[in-house]
């Protein structure tokens, strides 16, 4: 019983950590622009695929991973510079459709530049499961969870302790006010795209040894990450993490205890139920409407 529960929990947390990182990426860009970036899943795909192809070309894994994150950050910044920045001043819906276009574009390029096959990476610390209270846990799960924690801490330090981070937070709190006190909100948005891309790529690198990857893994991750971000409260980094982990856990527990056929339904029903009770999400800012 305990072993079973533990198995489900670890499974849920590992998958959830990936959703959390995707949701974190959503949150950063949303805070800077009200835009839900549907190309977020493609960042995860790029992280995994670049690492796979770099290692296949003989680059050692750590360097390959670093290159993958770097390349994805570059893609994120380019996406902002070439597609978002030129449409500055357009409504959020217009920008969202641009990111949908970007997501189709990146997938289309990836299928030509890489290929349309599935790929895997070896586990960073092998693939022999670690027995724990009767459950069997992959060492890579610890990499994923640890990596997610590190990324979150790093982001927190960045937001709290650096000037650039403070600019990001100011922009999130009130864009107009931030602009009035001299924050370059366009730069903040570019920074958000860069950081989101980096986080997505890191998630892709960490999780590929468990989930495999291919040119089109992004769509589903974006969907789940979006739901997670909403559950946690769009715009709250802590909410993104909690929301992601919860969605992962709901799926695993739903599959384990309810029905694997309807596990996604279970997850979505809970999310919708939470949103009815707390329309701002678990950690969202609940403001009184100002008129």
């Amino acid at each position: 019983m305990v072993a079973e529960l533990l198995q489900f929990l670890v499974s849920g947390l590992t998958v959830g950590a990936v959703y959390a990182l995707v949701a974190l990426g959503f949150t950063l860009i949303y805070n800077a622009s009200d835009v839900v970036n549907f190309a977020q899943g493609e960042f995860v795909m790029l992280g995994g695929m670049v690492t796979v192809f770099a290692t296949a070309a003989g680059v050692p894994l750590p360097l390959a991973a670093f290159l993958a994150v770097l390349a994805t950050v570059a893609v994120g910044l380019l996406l902002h510079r070439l597609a978002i920045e030129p449409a500055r001043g357009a409504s959020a819906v217009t920008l969202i459709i641009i990111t949908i276009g970007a997501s189709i574009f990146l997938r289309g390029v990836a299928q030509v530049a890489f290929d349309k096959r599935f790929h895997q990476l070896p586990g960073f610390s092998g693939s022999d499961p670690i027995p724990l209270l009767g459950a069997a846990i992959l060492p890579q799960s610890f990499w994923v969870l640890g990596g997610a924690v590190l990324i979150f801490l790093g982001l927190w330090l960045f937001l709290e302790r650096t000037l650039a981070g403070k600019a990001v937070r100011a922009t999130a709190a009130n864009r107009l006010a931030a602009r009035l006190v001299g924050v370059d909100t366009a730069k903040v948005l570019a920074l958000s795209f860069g950081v989101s891309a980096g986080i997505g790529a890191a998630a892709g690198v960490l999780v590929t040894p468990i989930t495999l990857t291919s040119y089109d893994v992004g769509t589903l991750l974006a969907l789940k990450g979006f739901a997670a971000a909403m559950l946690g409260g769009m715009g709250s980094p802590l909410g993104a993490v909690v929301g992601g982990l919860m969605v992962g856990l709901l799926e695993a527990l739903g599959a384990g205890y309810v029905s694997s056929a309807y596990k996604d339904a279970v997850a979505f029903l809970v999310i919708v139920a939470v949103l009815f009770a707390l329309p701002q999400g678990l950690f969202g800012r609940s403001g009184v409407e100002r008129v």
Partner: protein
Amino acid sequence: MQVPALLRRVLLAGAALALATPAGAQRSGEPIRVGAVLSVTGPASFLGDPEDKTLRLYVNRINGAGGVNGRQLQLTVYDDGGDANRARTFATRLVEDDKVVAMVGGTTTGATLAMRPVFEDARVPFISLAGGVEIVEPPQPYTFKTPHTDRMACEKIFADLRARGLSRVGMISGTDGFGASMRGQCLRVAQAAGVTVVAEESYGPRDSDMTPQLTRIRNAERVEAVVNAGFGQGPAIVTRNHAQLGIRTPLYQSHGVASREFISLATPQAAEGVRLPAAALLVAEQLPEADPQRRVVLDYKTAFEKEFNQPVSTFGGHAYDGLMILVEALKRANSTDGTRLRDAIRATRGFVGTGGVVNMSASDHMGLDLSAFRMVEVRGGDWRLVGN
């Protein structure tokens, strides 16, 4: 407001662009037009991509060798992205606009069923590359298929189980078309095969962790074997999770992962001992010299792997079989008339393909029997023939 003018301009521009397709372009000595609608991208690209590559490769080779009946083949491939509605549109395009004489393709059962009426109405022979039994049962006048059916895969797996003295299985299947269809067939034939399905689980097409489902199967009462109906990356993860959880009961996969790629995705350690029913293609080198398929599958394997630098899968093989059956029928019929061509395809006897020896008839538009399937097992990181 300029609405109508605009709309028309958009429409016309679209039409003009569409007209510029290669279909109307090159005309060197009246080529024979062959069409294909494949899921080159989308959730079934794992199947559609090698099919696409195979068709292009072999059409080039055939044309290089002088074509068919002295005429070149002209292949038009459309990508349906796994969407049946889109497949239907492309089917109409092939028939009405590209004027193909025959069609090889239809990667998924859903797309095939959506396209079938178009070809039936136009009396254009349609050789599908999808697995579902309902494509040819009951047989439609112009529709054929080359892959083994999922029912045959179930029967082959269950026969192997019984031979090992096992009868209680836990089923896990993907919720995609392939998995759901095979799951249905397995449940249907289980009783007749003397097998009891004691646990049943499923997973989504992009799920990345199946440990909860496998834990439930492990905990079910006296499970003696696990059977996974699915294709793509799902079965690789099931295989990994099966090993991770230390489940000792034998694991059977379906013909949906019959490729060496599966072993590397699932990792050789985890895949060790996994069995599945597959076409001879998977174990080409191990076939005895006397095996009629040996030369065919070795040739195809060598050609494909040399050209694309990736391991063959049986799906590419299905496309090869479809194209070759069509080519032979074209030769026999010496005509591109739909009905004559259909009759010629239906008269295929003793055709040796990668999937087996094909004997079609008016009532059997597939022409394969259970002997076409070989039971293979992963040993030492490669596929090995089991038994016989």
